[in-house]
């Protein structure tokens, strides 16, 4: 049921919004340091799958196991704590706190984890350098371009040294050149830090940065290489 050696695995997830099923028996797994693309048409339930895997929402039924712990058995507070310490997030847009400077945004997950401000911002600057946005430190998100903002978001996702990064259409609002650069930086940084990435996208060229892809259709995830 849980593939050998997986870091995060889900089995037979079901989730219904109202009367429309978003997930209908989806299964999924990711190994440490592995980049998995979750693909599928819009409305297929791939975002719901990501939210379930990240413990943001709880599925109606099914099991999610992270590092040997059952997510559905955890309280909301415990799951929040897990997201703070072990998970990182990149969304399509609107994720940077507009009033904080870029470096404060990157330092935010660390600070939520209880790291002191000075130390958090030092780490944040290192990650911003990795993502080639170290010159934006004191600017606010409203003052930087979309590609830069998205790199800041990637830096933020990586800053707290997570084990898994959840990226929901991270390049959806970017042109192809910027999008590819962001993907390149994200996957490179994740691979070198042995961070698993769950990448939700509908773009094949973005998914091509993954090690493996999973297709969600009608609420069911199909992992072709492992299933066939």
């Amino acid at each position, binding site marked *: 049921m849980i593939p050998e050696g997986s870091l995060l695995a889900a089995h037979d997830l079901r989730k219904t919004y109202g009367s429309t099923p978003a997930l209908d028996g989806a299964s999924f797994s990711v190994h440490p340091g592995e980049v998995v693309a979750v693909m599928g048409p819009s409305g297929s339930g791939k975002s719901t799958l990501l939210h379930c895997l*990240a413990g943001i929402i709880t599925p109606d039924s099914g099991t999610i196991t992270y590092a040997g712990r059952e997510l559905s058995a955890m309280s909301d507070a415990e799951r*929040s704590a*897990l997201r*703070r310490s072990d998970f990182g*997030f990149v969304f399509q847009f609107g*994720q940077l*706190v507009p009033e*904080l400077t870029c470096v404060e945004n990157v330092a935010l997950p660390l600070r939520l984890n209880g790291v002191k401000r000075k130390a958090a911002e030092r780490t944040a600057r290192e990650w911003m350098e990795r993502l080639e946005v170290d010159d934006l430190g004191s600017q606010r998100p409203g003052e930087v371009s979309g590609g830069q903002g998205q790199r800041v978001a990637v830096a933020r996702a990586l800053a707290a040294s997570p084990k898994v990064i959840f990226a929901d259409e991270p390049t959806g609002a970017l042109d192809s050149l910027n999008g590819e650069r962001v993907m390149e930086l994200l996957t490179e940084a994740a691979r070198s830090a042995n961070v698993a990435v769950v990448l939700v996208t509908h773009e094949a060229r973005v998914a091509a940065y993954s090690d493996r892809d999973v297709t969600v259709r009608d609420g069911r995830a199909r992992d072709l290489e492992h299933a066939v």
Partner: protein
Amino acid sequence: MTLLDSRTAPPAAPESPKPASRGAVVLRDLGLGVRFAAAGGREGWIRTLLTAVGVGLGVALLLLASSVPHLLDERNAREQARSETRISDSPDANAPKSDSSVLRINTTTEYHDRTVAGYLMRPDGSTPVLPPGVTGFPGADEMVVSPALRQLLAEPGNELLRERLPYEITGTIGDAGLRSPGELLYYAGNDTLTPAKGGHRIDGYGDSREGDPLPPLLIVLTVLVCVVLLVPVAIFIATAVRFGGDRRDRRLAALRLVGADIRTTRRIAAGEALFGALLGLLIGLAFFLTGREFVGSVEIWDVSAFPADLVPDPRLALLIVVAVPLTAVLVTLVAMRSVVIEPLGVVRRGRERGRRLWWRLLMPLAGLAVFGFTGRISAYEYAPEKPFGIAAGTVLVLVGLALLLPWLVEACVNRLRGGPVPWQLATRRLQLSSGAASRAVSGVTVAVAGAIALQMMFAAMNADFNRMTGQDPTRAQFAGYSEDVTGEAATSAIERFRATKGVDVVIGSVEAYASRPGDYADEDVQPTTSLTVGTCATLRELARIDACEDGDTFVVHPPGDKDMTAWVDETARKGKVVEISSGGKPMRWTLPADSPTVQGRKDPMGETHYGIMATTGAVDAGKLPGATISVQIRVDRSVPDVAEYVRNTAATVDPGMRFVTLDSVERDRQYASIQTGLQVGATAVLLLIAASMLVSQLEQLRERRRLLSVLVAFGTRRSTLGWSVLWQTAVPVVLGLAVAVAGGLGLGAALAWLIEKQVADWWLFWPMVGAGGALIALVTLLSLPPLWRLMRPEGLRTE
């Protein structure tokens, strides 16, 4: 040809084709704004409604305030109409007895801290005059009551009041005879009242004399209360006009994209604001008219009013109708000066410029200058123009404080660095846009600063309005005083008080006059002093008596008053006869030769007693021809309703007995009503401001729905965001309160100086600071449920 032609008929400059005149363009743009406001879809409607309701609330308050003069006039008129017609300047003068005259005595009592006004009335003939609002004269042991009193008597739990007013209700007093709908009033019929028992004969109702003019200090106070309450309302209206401004700016940006210029966008925005304000006027009128109907049934702090009394002063109403839309447009135009609406979005400017301090300081300084120019005003001086100088100065100072606040908030917030995450989120947010927060808070500042200044002024005026009574409520809590009773009745009355539930000690004495017998020439005065008869225990409360047995008598000297001591000795000659009287036929009595001489002391009422004091064994009080009873009663406060038991006893002894509750300080009634007004108004204003802060807060939260969901995904604790909401409200409010306290104290000190008083209490601002804290808590608490709701992960799904 050309020369001549050009001289006679210079060629007209070719007119550039104009599609419409300037006026028409302005009207078109304003109209466009109105259309946007009225037909902007659901969003547009919500924005317009928010503004309109906000403005409406403010307008309703303004209309209410503008009705106060009429309300007071009407109340005064009714009060005067039900006062007796004075037949001379002497208040004691009785009208001649006639078929229509009435003997009456004021039997006003207190019940559970509320005043129950009442009269016992005995008709002299068959056609007695009727007070306004009364259709039939109540027969003996019947009464007519106000609707409020009727209701109170009917409610369970008020048996003690029914016991005190044991009359049958035969009618209701109409509105014409009542000051306010909540007034507790009765007129009871009686057939035993006599002038000797305190009855006062009247022959008509309606006091045509002018009421006492308000003293200048009271005018100052009244004007100040209005200013303190109305300036925040004006600020609130100005804030309400800006509700949803960010969204409007974005829409205007879209208009710029299709070719509107900056002026057009301003005019469109002005049109929108105008529409909101006009709608607000209508809503305000509706609020006012509906609210007016409820004022009659609601009583706040003993204040109620007849709906018909709440009629706005026409001039003030006109001012409101003109000023509110004008303010709306002006505020919008001023607000838009700090925003550049570009075709592709909205750019806020002024960030790099920062707010300037100097012109903001100008206003409070100008206010102080006006004070200096007006000069000081004394309590009794008649200077009708000075109150307006003081009011103008106060307005300048208060508005100046409101203007100072945005600068201060910005200056302080920009210096804030670091701190925990919630603090950082809040301060960064404030740094990005402190304007919205400080605008709402400036209302708090004005209200609190004004209230502090006024309270300081009240405290400083204590000497004028509050008499230090010298009463000692630890020795007795109630005092009664009844005239012209027989000695027998007096002694039994004292016994009845002793027997009353909850009464510990009764200091009950019977008083009469004692005079030195003999014939005296017209220019001489017969030496007279008082004779007080009571038990040893009672006499000890009135004089410094060591040894006392029943049958003893004492000569009591007033301490530290030589003249009076000599006068007492003139009358109270030991071993000689004195004549005892009290209006009736004198009785002769010999003062025992062995009566010791002692010093008098103050009774619980704060009065010093002296003259002859006799124990009940020495003088039989029951045989005194006419006497006054005086009782001072100490009760066991732990007995519930003890005050009502004592008052009921007093009512059975003599309904006309003057019966008071002792307190160290006795408040002047006019003064009390102004303070009440301030409390009512300040509460309303703070609630109003809380409402506007809440609206901005919720608006902001809704706009950040997605961001909140992202933060939840990050594992942000709810408490982290809750605290940041708290700080976001608290930082500006605390700064506002600091400005308010400093400004209020300064203003209060200046006002006290102006009315030639000393500042009595520098710590009066604590309750207002507490109210500010409650405001923060209220806004934060009410923001939390929507915040929790918005923090759900569903926000991530809306794309």
